[in-house]
């Protein structure tokens, strides 16, 4: 299912809109700019989806990097979790 909310949030920052439900039919465009077509949004979905996955992966990598660096300083996993909330999931 295409997440139109994610596309609008990523690519139309500064525009005012609302989306009722999950489909394009529920899109109300409140800005003076032209309302994007469904085709335009559908075409943008793969890139938005990839960017979201990249962001999740980057955050996970940063988290693991921090854990590794803290562990290198001699902190145990329990200490890292207690102090920074890292390593819990």
């Amino acid at each position, binding site marked *: 299912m295409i997440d139109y909310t994610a596309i609008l949030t990523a690519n139309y920052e500064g525009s005012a809109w609302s989306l*009722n439900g999950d489909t394009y039919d529920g899109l109300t465009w409140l800005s003076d700019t032209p309302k994007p077509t469904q085709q335009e949004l559908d075409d943008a979905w793969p890139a938005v989806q990839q960017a979201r996955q990249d962001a999740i992966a980057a955050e996970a990598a940063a988290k693991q990097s921090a854990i590794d660096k803290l562990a290198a300083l001699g902190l145990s996993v329990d200490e890292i979790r207690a102090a920074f909330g890292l390593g819990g999931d």
Partner: protein
Amino acid sequence: MASILRFDNWQNSDGTSIATTDASGNISFAGSGAGKILQVVSTAKTDTWSGSVTAEAFSSNITGLEVTITPTSATSKVLIICLLHASHGNYGQANWRLVRNGTAVGVADAASSRPQLTSGLQPSDVTSATATPQMNMGAHYLDSPASTSALTYGVQLYNVNPTGTFYVNRTQNDGDSTSRGRWVSTITAMEVSA
């Protein structure tokens, strides 16, 4: 043999009406009408809503989270019960107000430029790591509309932060996963006799 008591208007010795009956057989007791629930109307929004709202402004009514009630008497009160599931992409905020026919009701007293809200959540102090959030996403409010016209109650979100999207009944990352839920938001109106 069974006894039958028939009356249209039961009065005390002073001639004051105590109870009356109508053609349908309903009995109404004088002086006992206050606080009765006369009608109940409820809406459950089971799908999602999302929206980009202008900074420091309220949204329009959330589509599908409205309830319309027509009081039978101008003295009636209307008890509104609302449960909202919402979040925002930035700033950890999700504030909202109740509106009746587009006008705010059940909101806080005016306090200079502070937004007058019904309920919601946001960080109590973004500069403090220990400050607890201000939060409560549900609300009930006893309105006195003094009207017998149709009244539509709805919910409007308030955007503190200049960027970000509001999410109702869904999470920001709504990817298809068993770890991400969907919710229901409800609004109920009850006419209460005066």
